């Protein structure tokens, strides 16, 4: 309904009796007011010389007083007036203004209309209706995009005094035309996107240093001052904003960390600062769920597949435990994220051997060094102070959540229902080391640690094996050093070896040893295992002396060439040592590789000596 304000219209809507009282010429009075109000849209706004508002004359005042006496008349007048202004807006309001030009325009228009209105003696209600409608007209010309752009540049930067005043000007203007809500929501959106951007810049892949302080600092020094400035003019509850801003920032950080969690865990312990801060910020159960889901997804994708090395899986398993206990010391999240890895590890048949080797490898460069460290840790220290005060199970704990099972080794061992598999592996590994002349003292020390984990009873075999080796010191003779094993207590695979004939000299020594043993231990005898052990020998060849530590079979083979310049055939060697030709060839080829023997034909070998020695 576009009704232009004319005296004809006015006389139609304002009943005569009210105007009649004035005793004047009604149509003429209306015209007088309208003339004074015109132009209905100020002219020359652009060149800053807008239409001057002239104080109304006595005649105008009299006319106003005459027919705008009653509120109902005022309201109807206001409606028609605003309609008229509205149609003027359509044609005269300059589109394409910059935001600041718009603000400037708003101030001039408000001033122009409000000055006129001041003289109309409107009731509060009539005036409010006019103001509201005028604001709507002006608001409709605001480009929200331009406003956001403007604020995006100014809001959270340095507040120099000049931009500070400009900002206040803009804020008050917007507030005056009832754009407070828009202003607030723009500000909040900008604050959020600024926080997001900042966190992305500050926090992405930065896990080795604490960053929460700098995030909080950025909010207090960069974002909050603008906030409080704006809210001081918009009369919004500023105080509650600061904590909301902090919450927003923490949520955003958590959001970022959720996407990074797997890599963060893999870089433990250098990521400890980030993990600790995640612990502080991770408060909602939704985010906790998102975190575990994200981690499990990544772990499945990166680790729990046939291409991954078992050691790597265990390696990450340990880091996962350590990391998630920082994020959630109660172990609820750990319990959830570790399950897929546990389930997967059960499908790998080399887990036990890798764990056993890991626990016993004291080399800090070992990927599973953590296990060796854990093993040496005193058992007492594992019992943490969790038992001191009882708390109900956390609500997001799975049904069979077990509290306090946070020891790395304990957790890994519990993947398997029986400890026997580990004991067998320890026995095999130590047995091999003992046979190969490993440090018995060192093995005993490790065994003490293992016993404190697994219990004493399970290591009887190893105790006996160690005693066998310790007692072998009793049987040291010239050349031959014998260890006598209690055959029932060694892994049978270690003792089952093909036999062969040792050199006569060694056989003599063994026979001497045997009769000594029988003499010392009435009722008992010994059985030689020739292929087990090692031999240290020296070769004098081409006027040079070379030292070797070789297997007994290799020693027996080379002994066939002692002080002999003739060739030896594979068949000869095999017969003399009572071994297969295949085994003989292998041992002969060992010495060829060492350049001690030479192959004359495929079955004839000779010492690799210079001619002069013949």
């Amino acid at each position, binding site marked *: 309904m576009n009704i232009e304000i004319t005296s004809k219209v006015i006389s139609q809507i304002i009943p005569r009796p009210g105007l009649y009282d004035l005793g004047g010429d009604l149509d003429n009075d209306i015209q007088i007011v309208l003339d004074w109000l015109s132009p209905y849209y100020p002219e020359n706004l652009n060149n800053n010389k807008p239409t001057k508002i002239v104080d109304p004359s006595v005649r105008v005042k009299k006319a106003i007083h005459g027919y705008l006496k009653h509120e109902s008349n005022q309201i109807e007048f206001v409606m028609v007036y605003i309609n008229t202004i509205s149609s003027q807006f359509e044609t005269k309001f300059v589109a394409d203004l910059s935001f600041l030009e718009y603000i400037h325009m708003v101030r001039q228009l408000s001033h122009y209309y409000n000055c006129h209105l001041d003289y109309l003696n409107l009731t509060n209600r009539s005036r409010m209706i006019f103001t509201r409608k005028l604001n709507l007209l002006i608001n409709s010309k605001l480009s929200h995009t331009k406003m956001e752009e403007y604020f995006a540049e100014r809001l959270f930067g340095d507040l120099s005094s000049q931009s500070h005043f400009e900002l206040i000007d803009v804020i008050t203007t917007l507030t005056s035309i009832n754009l407070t809500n828009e202003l607030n929501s723009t500000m909040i959106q900008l604050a959020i996107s600024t926080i997001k951007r900042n966190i992305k810049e500050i926090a992405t892949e930065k896990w080795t240093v604490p960053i929460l302080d700098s995030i909080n600092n950025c909010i207090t020094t960069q974002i909050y001052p603008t906030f409080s400035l704006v809210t001081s003019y918009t009369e919004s509850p500023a105080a509650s904003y600061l904590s909301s801003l902090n919450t927003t920032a923490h949520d955003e950080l958590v959001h970022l960390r959720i996407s990074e969690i797997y890599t963060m865990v893999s870089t433990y312990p250098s990521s400890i600062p980030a993990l600790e801060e995640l612990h502080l910020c991770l408060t909602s159960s939704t985010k906790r769920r998102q975190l575990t889901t994200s981690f499990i997804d990544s772990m499945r994708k990166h680790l729990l597949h046939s291409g991954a090395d078992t050691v790597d899986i265990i390696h990450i398993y340990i880091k996962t435990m350590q990391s998630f206990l920082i994020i959630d010391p109660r172990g609820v999240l750990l319990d959830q994220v570790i399950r897929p890895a546990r389930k997967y590890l059960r499908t790998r048949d080399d887990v036990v051997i890798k764990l056993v080797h890991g626990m016993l490898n004291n080399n800090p460069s070992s990927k599973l060094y953590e296990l060796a460290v854990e093993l040496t840790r005193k058992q007492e220290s594992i019992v943490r102070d969790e038992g001191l005060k009882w708390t109900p199970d956390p609500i997001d704990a799975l049904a069979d959540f077990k509290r306090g099972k946070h020891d790395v080794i304990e957790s890994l061992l519990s993947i398997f229902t029986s400890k026997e598999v580990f004991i067998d592996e320890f026995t095999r590994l130590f047995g091999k080391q003992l046979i190969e002349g490993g440090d018995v003292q060192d093995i005993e020390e490790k065994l003490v640690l293992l016993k404190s984990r697994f219990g004493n009873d399970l290591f*009887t075999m190893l105790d006996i094996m160690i005693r066998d080796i310790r007692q072998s010191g009793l049987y040291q003779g010239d050349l031959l050093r014998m*260890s006598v094993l209690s055959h029932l207590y060694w892994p049978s695979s270690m003792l089952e070896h093909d036999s062969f004939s040792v050199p006569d000299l060694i056989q003599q020594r063994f026979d001497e040893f045997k009769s000594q043993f029988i003499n010392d231990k009435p009722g008992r005898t010994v059985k030689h295992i020739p292929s087990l052990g090692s031999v240290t020998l020296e070769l004098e060849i081409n006027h040079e002396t070379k030292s070797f530590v070789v297997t007994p079979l290799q020693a027996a083979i080379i002994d066939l060439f002692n002080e002999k310049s003739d060739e030896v055939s594979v068949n000869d060697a095999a017969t003399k040592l009572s071994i297969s030709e295949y085994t003989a060839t292998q041992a002969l080829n060992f010495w060829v590789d060492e350049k001690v023997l030479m192959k004359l034909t495929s079955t004839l070998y000779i010492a690799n000596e210079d001619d002069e020695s013949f």
Partner: protein
Amino acid sequence: MKVKILEWKSFATWHWDLATSADDSGYVEELCGICRVSFDGTCPNCKYPGDDCPIVLGSGCTHNFHLHCILKWLEQESSKGLCPMCRQIFTFKEPEQTSDVLINLKTLIDGHRVMRERFQQGNEQEFEAFGADQDLQMA
């Protein structure tokens, strides 16, 4: 070329040298008739085999046992000093070196012999009255 062996580190296994298992090819797993564990292992109460848990070779019969096992058996009155396998009177081959445990074993065996002799004397006196019962008990 000269080959000079400096050290030959080698391994052997020890075994109880039982008459029945003494063949060149190796050893025969023989179990103690009481605890059913190999002689090269231990009785149920021992941890370390060999010196700490020796075996005893029967001389009256061919049955051998862990020393601790036969000791425990003979400590029971009801054993009557008999071999648990063949029920003959248990005697053993005394090794050159003796030990406290072997002396205990000897004492037990002697004790049983004394009991048997007393029992036999008593029975001879009451032979006429309880002849039938005595036959039963001896079986």
